[in-house]
């Protein structure tokens, strides 16, 4: 039972280094106009500039990709809430077995890797509903499914903290319809989990590559992989920005998540 504290700190220090180095390297590459070979202790603090990333922001390709990704992210978040909130509310009103079934269904996406999902999707709808494949917004249902395990768990935490049955009974007995109940009674009480689930959906969409790549949709991650050749520094800079944004999102989710649990 005696694990030394020194050993513990050492472990954490070593692992932390492993995590910082790549991020540092990416930042340095993106923002410092000194090739690695020429890098020396003398010029370590020279020639730092954010010009490359400004160039990237200015590129019309980037702007198209970024706006597509953001729209997809918003659509995914909305679709997730629209599909999950009513379903899970009803699940909580039903038997524990129903709830369990929904829980299991939410883990199913883990079982189907993105690559398998997208080739199946493309193959299945190519002849029957090609619009799903042609339109960029055909990605949204796939993204909802990809994010499902995480968003489901978040909303589950939020619902579990409330007494759904009482809320619904009270609201219905006052004459509200099911839709009003969900929108105006349940949802406001779950602001934190809904926000968290939305953040998670956002993070997933902004980082998702596989599906977009195979369906040839020009989202932000795809832009990053293509633009790498023409503007390496700017692209890497964008990469760092994406990492920072994802970190902030997940950190905020954690913060919100904690609030829900109390």
């Amino acid at each position, binding site marked *: 039972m005696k694990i030394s504290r020194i050993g513990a700190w050492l472990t954490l220090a070593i692992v932390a280094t492993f995590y910082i180095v790549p991020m540092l390297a990416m930042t340095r590459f993106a923002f410092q106009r000194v090739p690695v070979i020429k890098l020396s202790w003398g010029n370590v603090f020279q020639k730092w500039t954010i010009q490359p990333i400004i160039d990237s922001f200015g590129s019309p390709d980037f702007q198209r990709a970024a706006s597509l990704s953001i729209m997809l992210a918003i659509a995914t978040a909305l679709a997730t809430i629209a599909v999950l909130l009513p379903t899970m509310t009803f699940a909580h009103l039903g038997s524990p077995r129903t709830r369990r079934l929904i829980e299991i*269904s939410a883990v199913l996406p883990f079982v189907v890797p993105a690559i398998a999902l997208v*080739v199946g999707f493309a193959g299945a709808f190519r002849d029957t509903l090609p619009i799903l494949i042609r339109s960029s917004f055909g990605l949204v*249902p796939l993204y909802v499914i990809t994010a499902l395990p995480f968003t489901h768990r978040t909303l589950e935490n939020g619902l579990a903290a409330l007494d759904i049955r009482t809320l619904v009974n009270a609201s219905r007995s006052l004459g509200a319809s099911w839709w009003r109940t969900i929108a105006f009674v349940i949802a406001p009480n779950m602001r934190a989990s809904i926000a968290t689930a939305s953040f998670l959906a956002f993070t997933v969409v902004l980082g998702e*590559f596989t599906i977009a790549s195979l369906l040839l949709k020009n989202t932000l991650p795809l832009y990053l992989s293509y633009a790498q050749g023409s503007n390496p520094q700017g692209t890497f800079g964008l990469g760092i920005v994406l990492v920072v944004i994802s970190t902030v999102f997940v950190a905020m989710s954690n913060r919100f998540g904690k609030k829900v649990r109390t």
Partner: protein
Amino acid sequence: MAGSSKRRARHLVFLPYVAFLAIFLGWPGLYVFRSAFAKGTAERSPMIEAVTGQFRGSFVFSLQLSFISASIGAVIGALVAVAVVRLDTVRGLRSTVVGYSAVAANMGGIPLAFAFLAAFGMQGLATRLLREINVDIIGWGFRISDFWGIVLVYLYFQIPLMTLVLVPALDGLRRTWAEAAQSLGASSAQYWRLVALPILTPALLGGFLLLVANAFAAYATAFALSSGGSRLVPVQIRFFLQGDTITGKTNLGYALAAWMVIITALLVTGFQLLMRRAERWRR
């Protein structure tokens, strides 16, 4: 009668959700499997061809990569979890580590590949720094785009995933069990051997399986690191279905995808069952 019709109506509310899953998860899945078993003009079922023919190497490569990155990641992730729980009294440490683990575990794809290229590539910062202290990893044959390079990159999200799985499990190790063991005469070593490790085993094993599944399904990172990544099954599927489609042979791509689903399903189910067992003991 009234009761059962109301129950049926109750269940109807789940129709949209079930339909959604059926259309966008079920149907693609079914399509993959149907195509995977369709022989077409080939003599053997694509499913068999996929694992015996030229792709056998891909599966082996993918599984090797997954198992090795999972093993190393599991060990290091476990050590981090133990360290975090041991330093429980340090305010803010646990939330920082667990929080960052949540970020890193979901990190993947392009930015991660970029970061490691920038650090450990031929022109990488770390490569350069190591050369300063006379450690020439390029001279040793290390390439970020090869097997061990990809393992290194995968560790970035494998380690935190294991930490996230194990920290709650370690929390679940009740202090009373350690004290009970002591009061019954057990030494520290005996406690670990007879009580702590057996109790932690489901989480350890489950976490390991999760890591394997995680690595096995990964696509973007390997794709971005190119050359080495192209031998991985996910990337092969893509080449297959985007590149030349020799009629009759497309189904091989679906067979590869179907095998991926089967393997991932087994791993994830194993993980779930083990975590259920670990949960049960925590009560």
